[in-house]
């Protein structure tokens, strides 16, 4: 039992997509641009050459925000979407009927259809692969060249993530929606 979350030192991100590849290889995710559990959001640069605004060009690594108050879970008619014992938002593919309510409800666009099972898929924090093997890192965290992510137990005050969140300023995406994400972006 833990309450897993992730802190993202997003300014480190160089948009290399190592995380995306590691995720796909670890979790057997299908290829295809629209089939990803994690991604890097890119803002197209503002300005006219050569006067470009560097600050307008940012890389925002993203994935399921693992909300404590997840809209996807609320709308699921078959209870396919559930919180597991570690607070991770999961999908039970046996129960999923692909009504796609959850895909519409997710404010972060973090869900997609796995064409093999024809059910909804999303980031699981590597729950059924790495965590199931007793590891304490996700594939995306472990491989990152610039070490953007820190994964850990939010309930453990001694964990690296708890210390980071205590000592560094951070924000959540679309906090105004009250979804209470467990992904925190460090500033």
């Amino acid at each position, binding site marked *: 039992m833990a309450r897993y979350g992730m802190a993202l030192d997003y300014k480190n991100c160089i*948009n290399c997509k190592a995380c995306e590849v590691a995720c796909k290889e670890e979790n057997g995710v*299908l*290829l295809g641009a629209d089939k990803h559990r994690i991604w890097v959001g890119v803002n197209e*640069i503002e300005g006219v050459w050569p006067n*470009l605004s*560097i600050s307008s060009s940012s*890389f925002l690594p993203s994935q399921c925000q693992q909300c404590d108050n997840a809209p996807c879970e609320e709308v699921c008619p078959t209870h396919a979407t559930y919180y597991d014992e570690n607070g991770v938002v999961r999908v039970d593919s046996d129960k999923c009927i692909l009504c796609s309510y959850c895909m519409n409800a997710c404010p972060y666009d973090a869900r997609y259809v796995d064409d093999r099972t024809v059910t909804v898929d999303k980031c699981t924090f590597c729950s059924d*692969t790495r965590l199931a*093997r007793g590891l304490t890192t996700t594939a995306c965290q472990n491989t990152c060249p610039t*070490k953007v992510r820190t994964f850990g137990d939010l309930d453990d005050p001694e964990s690296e993530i708890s210390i980071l969140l205590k000592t560094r300023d951070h924000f959540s995406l679309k906090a105004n929606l009250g979804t209470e994400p467990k992904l925190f972006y460090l500033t």
Partner: protein
Amino acid sequence: MEVEISRRRFLQGSVALTVVGGTMAGTTALFSEEEKATSASPRVPKTVTTKTGTGKAEEIPFLCGMCVNKCAGFARVENGIITKLDPNPYFPKSRNMLCPRGNAGIQTAYDPDRLKYPMVRIGKRGSGKYKRVSWEEAYDAILNGTKLFKGLKQILDEEKDNRSTIGYCNGEGLSKEGFETLVGQKLGSPNYVDEVSICLETAGGGFFATLGVYPEIDFEHSDYLIISGANRAEAIITPDTMDMFKRTKGRGIKTVCIDPRFTNTAAKADKWLPVNPGTDLAFVLALTWVVFNENLQNEAFMKKYGVGYEEYKQHILSHKYTPEWAEPICGIKAEDIYTIAREFMNAEAPVYYPGRRSIFSPNDYQLRRAMAIFQALSGNIDKKGGYIYGNPIMLPPEYVNAPIYAQAKPRFDTEGIAFPTLKSGSWIVFRNMILEGKNPYPVRVMFMRKHNPMMSVPNTAKTRKFLEKMDLNVMIDILPSDTAMFADVILPEASYLERTSPVKSYGFLEPAIVQRKAAIKPLYETKEPEVIYKELAEKLAKPLFEISKKYDKDLQEQIKLRGEKKVFKEDGWNLADAWEKPVHEKNKEIVEKAFGPKAWEILDEKGVYYPHMEEYHKQLNPNEFQYYPKNRRFYSTMGDKKRVICKYDHLATRGIDPMPTWHDEWKFSVPEGKFRVITGRHAQFTQSGTTNNAMLRDLIPTNYLWINKGVAKKMGIEFGDMVEIKSEVGKGRLMAYPTEKIAPNQVFMLHGFGSESKGLELAYGNGANDAAILKDDIEPVFGAAVMHSTNVEIRKV
């Protein structure tokens, strides 16, 4: 619903490399039915990605082979299949990370287009018509030829044992030296070319000539960075990329990025200054002028270590390399140059990033010299936060018993080169002199390995003619590259995940030795390179010895004196004696001898070893490890031995400026209506070797042509439009990407696309090949390729 994406299925009925003969007569696909059966074997995964399991698995330490960095990882092997590549936390160079290419290495090993068995050409060169043969038959074809091509024996007989009739080329990698041993030392060819003369030869050369080192950077403690041309966010180099971007963006390192293009590195900088391509030297000379003019330099440091320092100072000041002079040349405002020079010299630990990239302009050697001297003016050399000389771990040298060939002639590729390099030569000069008939003796054979000059050496049309001119081409590789299609005999190599490689030493500041271990046995009928070298050497040794006996007077003399058996054995004519032990066994011997049996045990298990590793190495937090404690790192090792060669008189003896000097012929200009084409990398690709990787191709579908948005609009070009890019040497077609990130008179294309080999399902016909478009210009010091000197026309098609 069956929708699993399986590239293997695409291959059915596809027009691919034709394999005819044996049991495969009549098949038109790259793989015969039999091979498909093999592919469906338990040794190859059935799907592109494989979810890792929770059961038993082996974790084998490997070194990545997707680019030149050699990052370390562990391969997770489940039931004989590699399901995941994870970073190795023990290697100080790669600091527990694998980049996207490293993670996608599985797709290279299991690429359905792999060369799976030896093949001998049965159609016209370049037609892709091959016959599957056994290894013995392939070796025999190299020695004796076939109806379509001559063998090595006949060629060497005709050339009276002039071994220099053999040329060879090789790509970077851990098995590179073995190939050089085989063809260079054992077969006796001096005519070697490789990636050095089409990569960063002048960067290494310029820094070595000036500081005696191509330094590492201690990014952890530097606080100011000028990075010009190099694109560390996209051309990932370890540990630089990881260390640098943790401290940019207001977190320790103030960063100035000088690049014609707004790259991902520029996106991480505090200041991006688009420089005119090929004019960085004017920028650095102007920075240097500001420093001398305002007396900002570390005078004591330069007085102590500088050679020709006073002359250099006078040289810079008297040439009046002012920022106002530089501004119209390099396109960077004078006021920016003043500011940067002052900030740099006022910083605690400033760094002018030394590398690493290919050569863009003919003045690159002088640029590197000017950069190195500018760095030295700050005194931030051989110390924390600066340029690091370090203390590399030396492995014991290996000796090869090489025969001496009396009939072999020296190499000749020296035209237009001030300082020809004996070892790796100049690809362009070597090729062009042969095409122009300027070679003093016939070059009739090319042995090639892991190298794709059709897509890497500028002016593909000439490379094609060069390869067509040869009597015998042999290729050792893992994929049917464009160059492999010109081979008469193709020998399939095991990929990096299927082989144990010779042990290697890396790093200056935190050095270590590393070993790549085979995660799985070689797939299909492929073999480890060292096994191929040995078997080929065994096959060639006696028959070629007979030819030498016929023409080599020294050899005849020795045989008379000492007897044939003795001479054959003792003088290295037994070509296979360089590979008496398998690689793993040899590694053990070397490491145990140098560092003891415990060191070997650690290396073999963890893939990494350095003295005191067990004591020093520890995890600091989920993301960071200590490799060496700070007081054990090799920040300062040179003491009073370091020198800064400001004036290098030896250069003047061959017509090269002894001090970096600007010449107006290097001014950047593009005729109206044309564009200067510049090339480079994205983080998701290395070179042509990675463009057939399913995972990477999924991330970057093709090489778009970056074109300035305003210009594109005027030309009616929109995103995704197909455009033709045409230079005086060649052309190609690719899709347009209008963007503000590039100047109106320049276009950019990613290197490594536009393959013409039908054997590469994903790479074939995808995008354009920059090598086909770039002119084959060389720089004057080493004859290395200059990549950014070509103007092109663009039109919508």
